[in-house]
């Protein structure tokens, strides 16, 4: 059974006093457990909206989303979400921020989980630091720790590295692959960076248009780690760019 099933999902917005606008139309998608799937598309094609619907932050206008067979109605602890910005609460230390995700566990069970996850993302020594004392990359690591501390089956990431410089971005990409490799969760991430998508994913879904529709679905079997200048890598990148009609 697919871990994530999106069936007939469309989403329309009605701006105050305006005509309702369709952001997504008739999206059907099934994601098997274990892989890394990326959603790429031009801006405004509704890829972030789709992710927010999967996360339970927004309701689809039609259709349904199921995670592990259960229809998504609200955010669930089985699904982790990392935003484009770290969104750490500035008045809480890194530890307290991660603790937010564990608010329904007894205190005694929280700390070992927090220590373990912070160690894993390389912030073991930064648990008691305020968010403003972290660099952008470290803050995003803390956000990833907060999303992973519950050991979700599905981790969603909404352009998680787009605000970082390219060096930090590549480090975090490699680190994320490592976490995924060790963690046994399924990852779905939204990106507009096609190279990032080809470097990370097992499968790339291409969305295009307004409203957004699926126009491409690629499996990638290149071994990891992937050199970014190999012939198959560049060929795939070109193919996807073609589908987005960027050239």
């Amino acid at each position: 059974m697919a871990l994530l099933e999106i069936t007939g999902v469309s989403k329309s917005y009605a701006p105050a006093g305006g005509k309702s606008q369709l952001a997504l139309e008739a999206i059907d998608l099934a994601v098997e457990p274990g892989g890394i799937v990326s959603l790429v598309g031009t801006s405004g094609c509704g890829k972030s909206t789709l992710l927010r619907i999967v996360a339970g932050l927004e309701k689809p206008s039609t259709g349904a989303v199921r995670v592990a067979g259960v229809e998504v109605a609200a955010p669930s602890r089985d699904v982790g979400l990392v935003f484009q910005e770290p969104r750490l609460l500035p008045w809480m230390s890194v530890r307290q921020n991660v603790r937010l995700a564990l608010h329904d566990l007894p205190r005694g069970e929280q700390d070992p989980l927090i220590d373990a996850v912070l160690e894993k993302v390389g912030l073991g020594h930064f648990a008691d630091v305020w968010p403003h004392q972290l660099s952008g990359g470290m803050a995003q690591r803390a956000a990833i720790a907060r999303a992973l501390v519950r050991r979700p089956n599905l981790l969603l990431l909404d352009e998680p590295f787009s605000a970082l410089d390219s060096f930090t971005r590549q480090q975090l990409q490699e680190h994320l692959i490592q976490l995924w490799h060790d963690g046994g969760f399924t990852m779905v991430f939204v990106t507009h960076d096609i190279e990032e998508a080809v470097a990370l994913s097992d499968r790339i879904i291409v969305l295009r248009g307004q409203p957004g529709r699926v126009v491409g679905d690629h499996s990638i079997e290149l071994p990891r780690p992937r050199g970014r200048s190999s012939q198959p890598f560049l060929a795939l990148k070109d193919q996807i760019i073609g589908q987005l009609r960027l050239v």
Partner: protein
Amino acid sequence: MGYQTALRPDLPVEPNSRAATPDAVASPRAGTGRRWLTGVSLGLLLPLAIVILWQVAVEAGWMRPNQLPSPTAVFTEMWDLARTGELWQHFAATGQRVLWGFLAGAGAATLFGALTGYSRLARQILDPTFQALKAVPSLAWVPLFILWFGIFEASKITLIAVGVFFPIYLNLMVGILSTDRKLVEVGHVYGLPRRQLVWRVLLPGTLPSYFAGLRSGLALGWMFVIAAELMGASKGLGFLMLDGQMTGRPQVIIGSLVLFALVGKATDAILAWGARRALRWQDSYGAMRA
């Protein structure tokens, strides 16, 4: 960068220039006491210079003592008043008025500010009226309050409370309205129950604005207590000033002024201290330089 070796070498962290090392975070804030002392000393320089100049001016005969008595004359007069216990009575009367007025005004402002901040409906119903009332010069309430509450404590405390109310009300409402929607969403993602969402996400974000409101409210409280006491009182620092004027003792007027300045500054410092403690997480220029 000793801490980097503690991490996996293949996972270098990328601290920015302000990023804290664990050592810096763990170490006690050494030197804070000395820095505080330096700050206080620097702050006392100007008042001290003024007092010296003032003493010289009076002794040199540039000013007439019946208009501007010397600092020593002011001090002697206030010391005498303090020894008989009279000063303390005036001081206590004024302090109590400000305290109760501030508590009443701040309490009401917190209640209504929270209400209009969180509820659109409450804001639509209440805020226009409050904004209109705010436009009434607060001293214009005096005749009405005397008519309603008499010339004793109730009318004075009400007047102070009215003065205290508006800045706190406004700052709290604006603080709540400007809460980052994205952080509230984080609360939703992790399924925070409503109570925790208020206490851990909404409330802390409004604190900077709320404390700013409390401080300007308190300043207005000290301002209004004078107005309240000048409108008729038998005790209080305002009364003492009036008494000094009637009996031709400028040293009492000046002494009361100085007392106002001191106690106003002291109470503000208490609030400022509370704000600093509650807002340690802020990454502001002021916090960096505190």
